[in-house]
Structures are given as structure tokens and as C-alpha cells.
């Protein structure tokens, strides 16, 4: 009985899916057979509950029953990140270690508040380098997204490259059209005008 509770507690606590071997190590239950039996029991016991014990490609985890997710998703701790914070986070992913000064150049002074908020949440940390600060991602960041930061970075880069390609194409089309219309190159409008 105690053993099953231990497996249950581990699944509840972990921020990422656990393999049967991980569970064996954590619970000190040597036999993988026993682990599998306990998992099967738990899966069954939770089948009709609001939370589920389920196996995904990465291992075993506890999740909200899928049909209930929309109702409770906003309770998740980081879903309330503002757009600004998300951008700060994206920039740090791209450029880690990112000098805070560069971030401020890009996002303006409000970025100080984003950095503070993200640091408080434990997603990034600032490291003093001489008189300036460098921003790094934390292990909590990885735990939260459930992936290595390099993977997240790669995904972002791919998404970005696709978006840029689309934008470039659209821009090229627009220019071609404009040039065809009056034959003169377009100049930027006077800012003061």
C-alpha cells in the first residue's frame, strides 16, 4: 500500500514525465515489474477522476482529465505571463546569455519589470558580469517547458525563419506592385509630416 502511495506522490510532484526506471530509483522499489503493476493500478483508480495517471511517449505523468483542461488551464502558474514577459523570455532564449543592456535597448525600460517578474518566477536569472548583468535561463525554465533549452531555441528559430520568409515574400510582392504602379521607388514618409 505504502509503495503505491509513493509512486502516486512522485507522479504528483514531478514537473516532467517519469520513466519506470526513474520511479524505481525514486521509490527504491527495485522491481520494474512491481512498478508496472502499481502504475496499472493507479491508472485504473484514476480513470474516472478529474485527474489522470497516464503514459505518454516520455513516460508516466499525472494530468488534468483532457475534457476539463479548458476550464482550469488559466490556473497554471505561467499562463498569466504578459505579452511583454513572453517576448523577454523569447529574447533570452535566442541570445542566452543575454546582456541586460541589449534587452533594454530592444524592449525599452519596461523590460526591467519583465526581468524582475521572470526572475521572481524563477524562469530566468541575472548574473553580474563586471558592471552589467547577463540573463540566463534556469533549470526551472526547462522543467516548466518540459524540454531542453536548446530544443526550445531550435523550435523558436524554425518558427521565426518561417515567419520571416513569409513576411519577406509579402514585402517583395508589395514592392513589386507599387513599383509597377508608378515606376518610382517608394521612400519612407516624413515622420513629422
Amino acid at each position, binding site marked *: 500500500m505504502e509503495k503505491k502511495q509513493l509512486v502516486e506522490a512522485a507522479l*504528483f*510532484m*514531478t*514537473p516532467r514525465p517519469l520513466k519506470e526506471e526513474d520511479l524505481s530509483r525514486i521509490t527504491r522499489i527495485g522491481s520494474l515489474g512491481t512498478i508496472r503493476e502499481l502504475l496499472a493500478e493507479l491508472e485504473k483508480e484514476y480513470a474516472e477522476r478529474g485527474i489522470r495517471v497516464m503514459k505518454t511517449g516520455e513516460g508516466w505523468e499525472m494530468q*488534468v482529465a483532457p475534457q476539463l*483542461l479548458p476550464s482550469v*488551464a*488559466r490556473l*497554471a*502558474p*505561467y*499562463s498569466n*505571463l504578459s*505579452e511583454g514577459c*513572453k*517576448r523577454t*523570455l*523569447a*529574447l533570452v*532564449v*535566442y*541570445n542566452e546569455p543575454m546582456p541586460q543592456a*541589449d534587452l533594454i*535597448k*530592444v*524592449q*525599452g*525600460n*519596461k523590460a526591467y519589470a519583465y526581468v524582475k517578474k521572470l526572475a521572481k518566477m524563477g524562469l530566468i536569472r541575472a548574473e553580474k558580469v563586471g558592471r552589467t548583468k547577463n540573463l540566463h535561463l534556469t533549470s526551472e525554465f526547462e*522543467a*516548466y*517547458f*518540459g524540454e531542453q533549452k536548446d530544443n*526550445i531555441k531550435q523550435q*523558436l*528559430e524554425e*518558427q*521565426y525563419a518561417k*515567419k*520571416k520568409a513569409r*513576411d*519577406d515574400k509579402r*514585402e517583395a510582392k508589395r514592392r513589386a506592385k507599387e513599383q509597377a504602379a508608378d515606376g518610382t521607388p517608394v521612400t*519612407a514618409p516624413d*515622420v513629422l509630416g
Partner: protein
Amino acid sequence: MDEKELMGMITSGYSWEQILNQVIAWEGMDPWDLDLKKLSETFMKYLSRMDELDFAIPAKYIIIAAVLLRMKSDHLHFLEILDGQETPEIADFDPLDMDLEDNGNGHKFEVNPITSPPKRFARRRVMIDDLVLALRRVMKTQEKRVTRHKRLADKIKINQEDVNKRITGLYQRISALLKGMKDEEVEFSKIVPKWNRENIVKTFSPLMYLENQKKVECRQEEMFKEIFIKRK
């Protein structure tokens, strides 16, 4: 403002208005065009130094600090609105190329904000182990504080045996000075042989004994300023 000026200000017992005036003068600011950032920063520096040295910080000072910071933040916000067009905004930024100087080529790129999945993040309760670590850390801080005070005290060694000798010596010196000057009061600064920390302490502590024994009477009109000593 350097450390010496800061210390001078702390021991001056100035009001907050006087301190702000001093900061403005020292930093060479134009009173009609104040650098709020600098002013609030220096004032905060002043407060934190007071705090480090264990001086009581008047509540008024804290209010002033809060007002200054508020003004500073309002000001920054205002600036942001003012030059919003010139601030390189996120939309102009190519995340793969941090060359910020060269982003005026007409292309507008969006950084994909990270989308946060609705994922749970367990925060566990505290265990006894956590309390042990916390207790150790707080005790260590406390130990450090005590050692620091002890080290400071050690720097000025007062030999208990000659305390009495020094009390009588000081009393004679005060009496002689008062007689010689044909005056009612003598200033503390005149009875300290050489104005340094050691001598100040070595004169001040027997003076307190004399005051306690009701042999002299001391008065001080302003904190950290001159002490006037009278025989009783």
C-alpha cells in the same frame, strides 16, 4: 558623491530638505532642471548606508525616498511615451542578428513570443530539512553580525584596569581647563587630545562615567554636534 561626503551627511543630523539640497549641490545639478534619476539614486544610497551602519532611519526619509522613486518611475514612463517612435521596439528587431544599429531597413519582424502551455507546476510544502537549512542560514547571519561588532570593539581596546585612572584624569583635565578659561562650559572637542576614533572613544566613555557619578553635566543641542561639559 563619495563615501566621505555621505558619512559627513549622515553624522550631520540634517533634515531631509537639507540632505536633498546637499545632494543637489554635490552632484552639481541645476536646481531648475533636476536629474531625478541621480537625485533619487543618491538619496537611496544615503538611506542604505544609514541602514548598514545601524542608524535609525526617520519615517519621513522613507516617505521622501518613496516619493522620489515614484517621481522617477513616472518620469521614465513619460520619456517612453515621448520617444516611442525612436525607441527600437521589438517589432524592429531581428533576434538572430543582435546588430541593433542596423535595423532601419524597412523590414518589420516579430519575435514569436513563447507560448506557455497550460502546465501545472508543483510547489511543495516545507519539510524539516528546509527548516534546518533556514535556521542555519539565519544563525550564520547572526553570528557574522556579532563577530563584526566584536571585531569593531576589539579595534579600540579599553583596558578595564585603567578606567578609573582615566576617569580621574579626565576630571582633572576638565577642571583645569574650566579654571584656565574662566568659563562655565568646555567643549568636548577641546578635551579630546587628538581627534581620531580611538581618542574620541577613550575620552567619551570616562565622560559618561563622570556624568553618571553626577560630577559633570553634559548637554548637546543637536545630534552628532558639539557636547558642552559643565562641572556640578
